[in-house]
Structures are given as C-alpha cells and as structure tokens.
C-alpha cells in the first residue's frame, strides 16, 4: 500500500490554514475548530456498538435459556460461537461482503457474531452459579420451571449477565473502529479519512472519542447493575 509521505499529506488539509495543523502537530486550536466534524462519526459509532450488542444480547439470551433446558447443547453452542469469536473482524467483514454487500449490514452482522460467545458464556455461568438449594426452595414453594427461571434464576444471575454485557460492549466499541473496512463508517473512518490520514490531532480526537465512548457505556451498565441488584448494595 502506498502511504504518501507526510510532507505531501499536509497539502489540502481542511483547516490547513492553521500553521500548527500544517506542520502536523498536536493542535488544540484545530481540534476545537473542527470538533463538529466528529459528531456524525461518533453517532455512527454509537449505532455500530448499541445495535450489535442489543441483537447479540437477544440471541445469546435465547441460546442460553435453550442450553439451560437442554444441557448437552452448551458444548456445541460454545463451539460454534467460539469459532465466530476467533475469526478476525476485518476478515469477517470481507467474508460477509459477497452475501450482505458493503455497508452497515455487514458491519453489524460481523459485530453481532463477536458478542455471542461473551454474553452466552456469562449468562450460562450466571444461571449455573445459582445455588441448588435456592432452586429447590423455589420449586418446593410450587413455582413452575418457567417461574423459577424468570423469578429466581435470571434475577440472581444479573451480576454475571451484566458483567458479560460490559465486556461485550467495550469489545464492540473497539471492533466497531474497524467497521470502516466493511464500509460501515464510524470513528475508524475518521481515522483513515483521505487527506487527513494520520494527522495527529485527528487521530487523538477520533481515538480518544472511541475510548471515551467505551468508558461512558461501561459506567452506564455499571449503574444499571447497581440499580438492578439492590441486595448487593445492602450487603456492602
């Protein structure tokens, strides 16, 4: 791949009138001036994170409940989702293109496939860690299997489930930066954008926004976890 020498890159840079930007420095002034151009990539990135995590969560929850009823399915499901998980995202973006074309769909399908193993394993672990006595007590009180699942087991597994959701979310924020190779936009597209390629201030802002997004989403899920597990707070 031909990467132009930086000296040539500095021509035609938007906002290149700024002397600092022209010398490819780290320029707070340029950043403040150009902050609005990151708005759309950031929104795309949020979309590329939340949609795959939501779809992945729904699929994993279904699979985990299925595997909870039919234990023998756990192995095969972990095996298949493990293969999805190991295939590099850049590779997956290309493998999907003959089927889904270039764009959001390809990016989202690939990103969903990464979240499955993480969330599935955490849900099954959470369900398995519910003490047998608790289950027995619930059954003894006359709850049906379905009631035990929704009123006892799933609520008790919430910390593990949300821990999985946190891992899946921050991983997806990172992988979504590569969605640019699937034509999916996002902050990665900003990092690799034409004339501004590897312009220091641009890399710092776009990369920094991705890290910030991961941190904010992580804190939000943590807050959700505290709100959903009041018994933990009482103990602490």
């Amino acid at each position: 791949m031909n990467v132009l020498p930086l000296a040539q890159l500095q021509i035609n840079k938007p906002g290149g009138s700024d002397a600092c930007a022209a010398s490819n420095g780290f320029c707070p002034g340029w950043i403040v001036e150009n902050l609005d151009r990151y708005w759309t990539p950031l929104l795309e990135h949020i979309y590329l994170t939340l949609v795959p995590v939501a779809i992945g969560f729904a699929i994993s929850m279904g699979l985990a409940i299925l595997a909870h009823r039919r234990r023998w399915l756990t192995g095969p499901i972990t095996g298949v989702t493990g293969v999805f998980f190991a295939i590099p995202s850049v590779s997956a973006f290309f493998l999907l293109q003959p089927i889904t074309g270039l764009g959001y769909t390809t990016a989202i399908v690939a990103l969903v496939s990464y979240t499955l193993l993480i969330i599935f394993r955490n849900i099954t672990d959470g369900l398995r860690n519910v003490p047998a006595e608790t289950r027995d007590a619930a059954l003894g009180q006359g709850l049906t299997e379905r009631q035990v699942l929704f009123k006892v087991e799933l609520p008790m597994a919430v910390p593990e489930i949300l821990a999985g959701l946190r891992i899946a979310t921050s991983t997806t924020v990172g992988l979504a930066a590569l969605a640019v190779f699937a034509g999916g936009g996002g902050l990665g597209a900003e990092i690799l954008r034409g004339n501004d390629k590897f312009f220091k201030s641009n890399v710092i802002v776009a990369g920094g926004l991705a890290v910030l997004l991961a941190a904010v989403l992580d804190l939000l899920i943590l807050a959700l976890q505290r709100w959903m597990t009041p018994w933990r707070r009482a103990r602490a």
Partner: protein
Amino acid sequence: MTGTLAFLGDFGDAIDFILHERDSVSGGVRIGGIGELAGLAQTHMIVSVAALAIAAALAIPLALWLGHLGRGDFLATATSNVGRAVPSLALLAFFISFIGLGYTNVIAVLVLLAIPPLITNTYVGVRQVDRDTVDAARGQGMTGIEIVRKVELPLALPAIFGGLRTSAVNVVATATIAPIANVQTLGEPIITPQTYGLVGGLGAAIIVALITLLVDFAFARTQRAVTPAGLKLAHPARRRLFTLPTRRRLESR
C-alpha cells in the same frame, strides 16, 4: 474465474485468486497466487510471533512476581479494562502519526495489545493457586523463587496459556491492519481494494480466518497438554472435548 469453482461465486473466485496469479484491478501489476500470498503470510507470521514473544517475555515474569507477592489487583484489572477499550486501529494510527511507519512500530503496537491478557491471566492464575498449597511448599522450606518456579508457575500454566491464546488470536487479527503502516501482511489485499478488488480481499480474509482458527486451536490443545494432571483430576467434570475461552480469560479481552 475458473469453471470448476464458478458455482461458488465470489468465494470460488477468491480461492482461484489464492491459487493463481492474475492482473490487478487497475491493470499493470500481477497480483494473487501462492507466491505473493505466501510472502504476505510470512511477514504476517514474523510480525505476530515477534510481538507475542516480546509481550510474553515482558508480561509473564512481571505478573508471576506480582501474583506471588499478592500485589497488583489494581494493575491486573486496570490493564485489561484499558486494553479492551483502546481500539487497535486507533492505537496503530497513533503510533504511525507520532512515531512513524514500519516494522518496529507495528510490532510495538501488537506488543501493547498482547500484554493486557497476559498480565491479567498470569496474575489471576497465580492468585487462584490454593493458599494451602503455597503454605505447604513454604513449610517444606522452599524459598520464594522456588515456590514461584515449582508450585505457582506449574499450577498457573493453564491460565497463562489461556492468556497466550487470547493474545495470539488478537495479534494475528490485528496484524491484518499493519499495511496502513507500510508493513505488507495478509491485510494488504484487504486494505487496498483499488488494486485487489473484493475478490482479492476475500481471498486474504479466508487465509487470515483459517490462520487464526488454527492458532486458536493449537493454543487450546497446548493449554490442555500443560495442565498438570492433578488439576485435571480435581475438576473432571470441567473437561471438555474442546477447551474454550473461560469467562475470566474473556474478561481480559
């Protein structure tokens, strides 16, 4: 497009690209074929192996020692959280713009990506060793170094290999974007569609996917092989046909 593979559509064409040389999309250059791809794969593997080796040499001894001392809970969780949150593309772009292009920078980025899972897994692996076992070793007169080498390290090996597996897969996957730093790995056909087209990218993507699956599988087998017999006996129910990433290992990604 060869007739025999035509029924596979783009995938058949991609396999043809892997096997036979052809003209580039824009013309003028010959691309594809075993020769070119083997060269790209070689660079890919050299960069990956170097990065993993350096990261292991740095992270494992450090985490072993911190785990032995029982100091570093914060480090272990912080590195894994930060490591997961920083996108590999952003890190590579950061290195390119501030330091420059080339092998050294690509390897440096891959090392940084490989370190967090190694630290977290090694540290957790050592901390999970039964305290009674360590006390027994100390009671037999073993020194600190002997305890690390003869007790804690062997018992933590499965966890350490879990970390190596996660890091290896991450490194091989991330080496795919190395061409943006002028290092010609298997990502080259993926990142320059103007020369290689969809089919070239697809061919390279197939090879990269196969390599990572192979690496993943190889480390999974090694992980099982290095698990001390005593640990296998202790958890017979946990043994599976395929060892898959555990939650703790996933947390480090």
